[in-house]
């Protein structure tokens, strides 16, 4: 099959700033972006001037032309924004960058995301203004205005339809916090979580306790993509892109919670194409990074990526199944958005690359195939699959 990115592009550099609690970054957001990009280039052993493309998502404020100017890029060839879906665009940005490299539009594309919520405001707050019009007029006046509130109703419906118990959500949170204790980069390093602490934590919005909700952080992350035929020339073991794409189902974007298929992570139509392009099955996936805006979304994403039957969640979602290295499917091995850092999910893709390299702080033995699900419950969502050279 020629119309694919499978095996044509590889990640050869990854870089992150230090991760900070929201509002605590000492640098401006744009400088954070530059620092992550410089780190990724150093990791790849290239000059930042050789970068010729930028791709991001969720309306990142660091404009590619501005970045190219600041870095002294010689020849900007690709300037791309994944449209819509917020953090659901993380793997989508990688897909777009990979498409550009695979088709020769660009040679060396940086995928990045930078966030300084102290500088630009928080995600988890409602709009504070006198009047509201449009779609928001039909939700905000009822106190439905934050991401947690927007997604809890989907999760409630899914849990109702499939008899999912609270402990299944808890297991996802416990696994992330477990992994964060081995990851010194993690914001929650040194702050472990157990069943009792989870159970006693306050409700944000049922069925989400405090520990079911992602962090809000400042920082930046970046990765460098080049054509696969060059990938062996770089210092680190390449992580080849086996598949990366985005999408959503029929009328996923219908307003005021009117999408016909409501209780979904939005991955149902994306996943068959994802596995088809990668030429792998769910059983081939050695390690999973699954975007946690909220644990309920992780649960639905894992079901829709076919790792678990929807009616078998209470048995599958136990901590032992989700932790590295011994679990059935080690998940969110950096601590993820719950406990490492909320870098809008790009950190999850970087952790997948680390697993392929064998450099994770919670390394899975012989990790050849690493899957990332970016989303969930938004539209569009996106997923990516990385593999070692052995998978090509």
């Amino acid at each position, binding site marked *: 099959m020629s119309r694919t990115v499978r095996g044509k592009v590889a990640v050869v550099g990854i870089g992150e700033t230090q991760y900070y609690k929201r509002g605590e970054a000492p640098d401006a957001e744009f400088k954070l972006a530059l620092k992550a990009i410089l780190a990724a280039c150093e990791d790849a052993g290239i000059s930042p001037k050789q970068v010729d493309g930028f791709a991001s998502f969720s309306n990142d404020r660091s404009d590619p032309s501005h970045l190219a100017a600041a870095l002294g890029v010689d020849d900007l060839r690709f300037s791309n924004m994944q449209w819509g879906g917020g953090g659901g665009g993380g793997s989508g940005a990688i897909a777009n960058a990979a498409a550009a490299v695979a088709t020769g539009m660009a040679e060396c594309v940086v995928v990045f995301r930078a966030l300084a919520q102290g500088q630009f405001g928080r995600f988890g707050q409602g709009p*504070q203004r006198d*009047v509201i019009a449009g779609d928001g007029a039909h939700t905000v006046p009822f106190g439905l205005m934050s991401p947690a509130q927007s997604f809890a109703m989907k999760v409630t419906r899914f849990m109702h339809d499939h008899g999912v118990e609270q402990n299944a959500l808890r297991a996802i949170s416990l696994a992330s916090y477990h992994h964060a204790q081995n990851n010194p980069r993690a914001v929650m390093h040194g702050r472990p979580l157990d069943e009792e602490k989870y159970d006693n934590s306050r409700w944000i919005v049922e069925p989400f306790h405090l520990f079911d909700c992602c962090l809000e952080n400042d920082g930046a992350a970046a990765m460098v993509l080049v054509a696969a035929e060059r990938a062996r020339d770089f210092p680190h073991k390449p992580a080849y892109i086996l598949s990366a794409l985005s999408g959503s189902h029929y009328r996923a974007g219908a307003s005021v919670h009117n999408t016909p298929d409501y209780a979904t992570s939005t991955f149902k139509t994306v996943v068959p194409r994802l596995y088809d392009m990668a030429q792998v099955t769910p059983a081939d996936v050695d390690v999973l990074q699954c975007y946690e805006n909220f644990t309920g979304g992780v649960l639905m994403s894992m079901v829709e990526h076919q790792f678990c039957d929807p009616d078998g969640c209470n048995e599958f979602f136990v901590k032992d199944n989700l932790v590295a290295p011994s679990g059935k499917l080690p998940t969110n091995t950096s601590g993820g958005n719950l406990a490492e850092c909320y870098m809008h999910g790009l950190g999850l893709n970087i952790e997948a690359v680390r697993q392929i390299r064998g450099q994770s702080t919670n390394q899975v033995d012989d990790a050849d195939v690493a899957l990332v699900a970016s989303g969930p419950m938004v539209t569009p969502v996106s997923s990516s699959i990385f593999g070692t050279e052995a998978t090509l």
Partner: protein
Amino acid sequence: MSYLNPGLPKPVPAPDGLDTPFWEAASRNVLMLQRCGACQEFQWGPEWICHRCHSEDLGFEEVRPLGNIYSYERVWHPVHPALKEQGPYIIVLVELPECSGVRLVGNLLGDPEQSVEIGTPVRAFFEHHRDAEPPFTLVQWEKV
């Protein structure tokens, strides 16, 4: 009577006029939703064309204000200063089976700590804020 404490953003009709009939009707204790004149199906939120048959022949029609709870959530953590002293409150997503199954968001009136079951029949309650500037009406829900 107001279910939530005052101070949240007040709803106003969209500047493009798309949902104006809904708000005007609500102020008269009437529920009106968008319906396609060509294929007769309802859709919500309002759109510029029918998403089924692509007709531009769209109007608003009075409907019986009856539905079932499709999903719900009990909110505890306030994300707006107006709700700091609110305590828990319940948001429901109500499906209207007589209207092509469209859904509306509202609050479930009554005890905020009451148990809620998906599928429960509810009827609309028009919560008027006549003294607000600008005045508005919220379509709320109560168990039948």
